[in-house]
């Protein structure tokens, strides 16, 4: 089965779960006075779930043929290993690590580390240029966000700013 139909199947499952919640569980918590209203919180989700299930089935059952060949500018997912898949996965892992470390490590070390590690994953080896660029960029962005936009960003690790 082609990828687009697998995706339609996954979306169908999500829509069925969504529809189940809308039809059978949501209204249980509805206060009695709302039950006289013509519209309930579940009304719109019920309509959406039915339509989405039909649309997902339409794609899943192949009523609409997809493009046979990938477009010239797009990536052929069937041959993903021909592309830089390792770099893409490593960068996704790096982004996840950045999300988890941003607060505990502080904005400046986390950002400088993210930029430097990202460039290294992509093949940059001139560390004498890379490290100052990453540190400078982190500092400039921190200054702009903190001082110009007025949004608080803890620059150093929580350990240091909380007094250990």
């Amino acid at each position, binding site marked *: 089965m082609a990828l*687009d139909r697998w995706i339609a199947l996954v979306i169908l499952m999500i*829509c069925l779960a969504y529809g189940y919640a809308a039809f059978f569980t949501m209204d249980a918590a509805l206060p009695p006075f709302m039950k006289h209203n013509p519209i309930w919180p579940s*009304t719109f989700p019920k309509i959406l779930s039915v339509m989405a299930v039909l649309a997902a089935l339409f794609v899943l059952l192949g009523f609409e043929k997809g493009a046979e060949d990938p477009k010239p500018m797009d*990536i052929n997912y069937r041959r993903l290993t021909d592309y830089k898949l390792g770099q893409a996965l490593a960068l996704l892992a790096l982004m996840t690590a950045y*999300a988890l470390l941003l*607060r505990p490590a502080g904005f400046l070390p986390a950002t400088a580390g993210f930029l430097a590690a990202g460039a290294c994953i992509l093949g940059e080896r001139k560390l004498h240029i890379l490290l100052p660029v990453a540190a400078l960029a982190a500092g400039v962005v921190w200054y702009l966000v903190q001082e110009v936009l007025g949004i608080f960003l803890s620059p150093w690790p929580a350990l240091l700013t909380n007094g250990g």
Partner: protein
Amino acid sequence: MLDGILIGLGTAFSLTNLLMVIGGCLIGTFIGMLPGLGPMSIIAIMIPVAISIGDPSAALILLAGVYYGAIFGGSTSSILINAPGVASTVATSFDGYPMARQGKAGKALTVAAIASFCGGTIGAVLLMIFAPALATVALLFHSAEYFALMVVGLSAIAAFAGSGQVGKALLMTLLGLIMATVGEGALFNMPRFTMGIMDLQSGFGFITLAMAMFALPEAMYLILDPSRSNSGSGSGEIKDLRITREEARAIAPVIGRQSVQGFLIGVLPGAGATIASFLGYAVERNIASKAEQEQFGKGSVKGLAAPESANNAACTGSFVPLLTLGIPGSGTTAILLGALIALNVSPGPRLMVDEPQIFWAVIISMYLGNLILLILNLPLIPYIAKVLAVPRTYLIPFILFFTLMGAYIGQNNATELLILVGLGICATVLRFADYPLAPLLIGFILGSMLENNFARSMQLYDGLGFLLERPMTVGLLALAVLLVVLPSYRARRARLRAAGAADAD
């Protein structure tokens, strides 16, 4: 209208707003030039900055400037390195790149700049004429008509964005609407579909979703396929920016025609700048003389001017449904709509009445933006083009970083970054399978408005009576059904005919 123009002039010519236009155009040009980064990604990245400004006029002027700048920048990379930064400038590369290869890069950039300027300016004049008229008509609409109108808008977006695969686009639109129902809405004041997760109590963040749908998959594509970020070749010398009188005479009617056509296509929900540019190119090629037709694709100035004026006029045209009806005509204007909602501004027919300074300042700033792009960027292009020499090893981590920062600043919550990465992976997989992502975002943004108008109509008529009692609502809903069914039926018939012809062979 004169009062409005004066209000707009007063607002747009304030020092802050002038700086916003100039800054927006320059940022847009710089980033739009980077291959692989479209206006949607750039605007998504810029939204947290715009929202933090606080003033809706200034924020919208900045974002509109970024939008124009990105389209302009996309043309430059199309011409110089045959790597369209945005889909709407793909047609620009058909004749722009051959011109650059013939040593006429300067001339090609001048033609593109003049065509863009004229397209944008004519589009802004038409917007000034059309928008107030449409807003006056839209003021007569009730919630039932609004509901139906939004359904028409969403159907049209699904029909156009799906490009022959309406089912997929419709599914994405519905998925966006479903995502909009997650969290505690204003209508019922009770959490829905949060699965007990506190971070979902306020629903999905619009900025996070915008970043995940556009900026992150774009970056993933750049990582997977290094040839897309064809950097390093933009450092060549660009000389002789002049065009001859004959060339000016040849492109003038093309620009005039394509500006009007592009604007009208831009007004249609879902059509947008990409369709306008391809259609503009095709129309001009068809009506050209036989000798000129042979030049198309080999470095024709007409072939370059047509998509450039059409795409800029279409960008302006897409502001008509946004400003007058509150319905985004494209993914980019959907992001702008989300930004306006975040700034507590409700675009729609009341915008012109309630907040004329925003409405008119945006229109005036469009003239200004086009003018600034012309006078500032043309002499600076040889220098700005140096940005194409940024190596991808530096470029990609910075794109990823700004994507993450956008989501973080928007919500000030590190969990949002994990949601961004998760949704970004889903969006990349959806792109692999050719699912259009703009309908999802537009569905998400229109979701709460659609439900609010639906609920109001249901309450007023004590049920679904409004569907029968209001003829305009019925007409609009019938149009919505036709918009979905017809393209799908046509595509199926064309396939069957093609299969029949193949069998006959």
